[in-house]
């Protein structure tokens, strides 16, 4: 059985969840003044997620710490904000990772195997002046690291043999953070949204208000309504100019260009005309495809352009500029460039008032 302290550190573990269940707390119990501390701590967890994206551990009172986790989850579910599901999960996972990185290798391995099904071996290998303590099956590695942007996480830059990737202790705990984040995000988003009674509901209301005050800072700014071709990233410019010259674009170039143009606000008719006028594409078919990408047909998903790393894989990335080193998405390039150009032109010519957004 897991100790109360361990459960408080890692309340998302199956053993910790079982421990909480054995306490058999009901919603009524939680509304009892005796549990004020738990509600306050749960509220703090959510607030920390909103402010910093990283919760702190408060292990002085382990039972409060433990119980406040499911209550915090409940608050998040009740708030019903998609954006917060992810951010809260990240915040809790980062907190856990801070503790995990100081655990012994054996403890890390046990959590990884039993809780997250990793195929993991302990090793002791020193290379390039780094001490590798684990070997992880590539499939488990990729599930967690494939979305990372830093070059040292690409498997091409890892030491891999016969399907196993070498990891330091810190790296293993970083990958566990991803598993934890996914588990918590699942936990809070899968449950049905509920309305909570009494003091619980009051906490949710005040947290909602708090999130609204911070919303614009967190969710990023909108793009200008006017299309600015001079702010296109080099990859999109290249595809765009190629298209104008009648070049046959690859599938990825076509999809990337179309979804980019849709997302920066070009009119669907304009995009259709663009493709039809310079290629021998059938208008009806082209329109259908473009409307599909715009989310007007089929699955109703509006597609965003692929990330820079996808463009790199498919050789759509072209002559990256200095700004490209600092971004991971073509739309970010556009967003930054638009702001730069508007700033150069002076505030009066931009259609947005300055200082509406603080850069993150």
């Amino acid at each position, binding site marked *: 059985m897991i100790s109360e302290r361990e459960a408080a550190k890692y309340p998302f573990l199956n053993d910790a969840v079982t421990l909480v269940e054995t306490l058999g707390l009901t919603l009524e119990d939680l509304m009892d003044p005796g549990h004020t501390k738990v509600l306050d701590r749960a509220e703090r967890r959510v607030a920390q997620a909103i402010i910093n994206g990283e919760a702190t551990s408060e292990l002085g009172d382990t039972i409060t710490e433990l119980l406040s986790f499911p209550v915090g989850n409940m608050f998040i579910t009740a708030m019903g904000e998609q954006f917060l599901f992810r951010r809260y999960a990240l915040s809790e996972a980062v907190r856990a990772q801070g503790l995990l990185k100081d655990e012994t290798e054996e403890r890390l391995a046990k959590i990884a195997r039993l809780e997250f099904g990793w195929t993991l071996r302990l090793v002791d290998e*020193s290379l390039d002046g780094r001490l590798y303590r684990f070997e992880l099956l590539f499939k488990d590695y990729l*599930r967690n*690291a494939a979305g990372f942007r830093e*070059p040292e996480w690409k498997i*091409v830059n890892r030491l891999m043999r*016969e399907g196993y990737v070498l990891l330091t202790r810190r790296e293993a705990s970083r990958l566990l953070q991803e598993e934890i984040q996914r588990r918590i995000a699942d936990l809070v988003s899968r449950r049905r949204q509920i309305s909570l009674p009494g003091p619980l509901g009051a906490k949710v209301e005040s947290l909602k208000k708090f999130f609204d005050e911070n919303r614009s800072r967190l969710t990023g700014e909108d793009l200008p309504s006017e299309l600015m071709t001079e702010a296109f990233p080099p990859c999109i410019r290249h595809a765009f100019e190629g298209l104008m010259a*009648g070049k046959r674009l690859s599938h990825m170039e076509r999809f990337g260009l179309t979804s980019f143009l849709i997302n920066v606000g070009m009119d669907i008719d304009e995009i259709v005309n663009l493709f039809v006028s310079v290629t021998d594409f059938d208008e009806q078919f082209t329109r259908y495809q473009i409307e599909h990408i715009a989310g007007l047909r089929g699955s109703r998903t509006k597609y965003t352009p692929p990330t820079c790393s*996808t463009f790199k894989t498919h050789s759509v990335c072209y002559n990256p500029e200095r700004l490209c080193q600092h971004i991971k998405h073509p739309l970010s390039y556009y967003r930054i460039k638009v702001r730069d150009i508007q700033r150069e032109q002076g505030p009066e010519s931009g259609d947005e008032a300055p200082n509406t957004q603080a850069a993150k």
Partner: protein
Amino acid sequence: MAEQDWGSEQYVLEHFGGFYSTGAQHVEAPTEIKQREFGFLSFGGRTMFRHIGFEDTEELRRYLRNYSPAHSYFSAAYYQEPRAPMAEKGWIGADLVFDIDADHFDLPCQKTHDRWTCKTCGEAGKGHPPERCPGCGKATFAEENWLCESCLDAAKYEAQKLLDMLIQDFGFQPSELSVNFSGNRGYHVHVRSPLAKDLDQLARREVVDYILGIGIEAEYQGLTSRQVGGGSMLGRGGWRGRTIRALYDFVGKSTPEEIKALKLGRNTTRDLIEEKDEILSSLMNQHPSRIVRYIDKKSMEKLLDAAVDEQASAIDTVVTTDLRRLIRLPNTLHGKTGWLTQNVPIEDLPDYDPLTMAVAFNEGTEKVYIKRAPEINLQGEVYGPFEEETRELPLAVAMFLLCRKSARVVR
């Protein structure tokens, strides 16, 4: 005669029909046939018949006998309902598949057998079309792409490099891999493994980057500016060993003139020539970080790029990352060649010659009028080049020229 008669479609269709009347018996169903989607292209038809499902091998063979499709495909993916529309199929997983197509390579032989014509101004040339037409600056071209032993050998070499990486680096068992000649210019490699089946798109992209060597950085290949201890990496597995071996080979075999031609930094060029033995011995005996002092950062990037190019396998990026891809079904005919898509046991790959083994129409001759075709070597005999001439040719050659729409039957 009208343009649409090139290829004598009806004639080819009848021969495909003749082939499948007995040949369908040799088509094996892919594993877990009930969970696979099938797709077919008919002669003359422009749309794919997709979302087709079969209960068993016999039903699949019957379809081939009844319809003699020009192209036959099955899904790399497994679905709960393969016949349902895409959004409702219920994706279970997918084999990891790789496509190697010589059409994507830059090969000297393409200069002899491929041509392009600018659709705007009529300017023409050999090999791959340029980025922009030198005549008018437009970029719409008609392409005539052919193939030869050199292209097919190049594709096979890439397939072998790929297999090495899949087995040695990723740890797949040879029994989990199957290699198919595509029936045209390349090879397909299928990985059927529980480790591959549920990889998502992001993970498959990482696999692609690994096979292509995209994103390799010197710092993470042991070529760090801060010197560290440890032994040589020459014998090491994975990219680590591959990059260091490529670097070793490159420095070892290059003449001073070749090194100068790379336009590396001045000090680097000097060191690579004057300290060559020292560098080679360091790579052989010590940690690679020992050589970083001879090579500046920019030069190292260039050297690594060249090394990676040689060691990577030139796979198509889209096929592998597409979770719902349709791939050619082995032992069916390829409508652009009249050859078979053919499974090749891994141990037979080194000696495999598609221009002998994958030829389907072995008997008889046919009289055809040929518009234009480069030299082609089929079953050990060389035919052509042809230009506006009528010839009686072995059926295999005639079918090939017809399938490429460069000839028509003369009756």
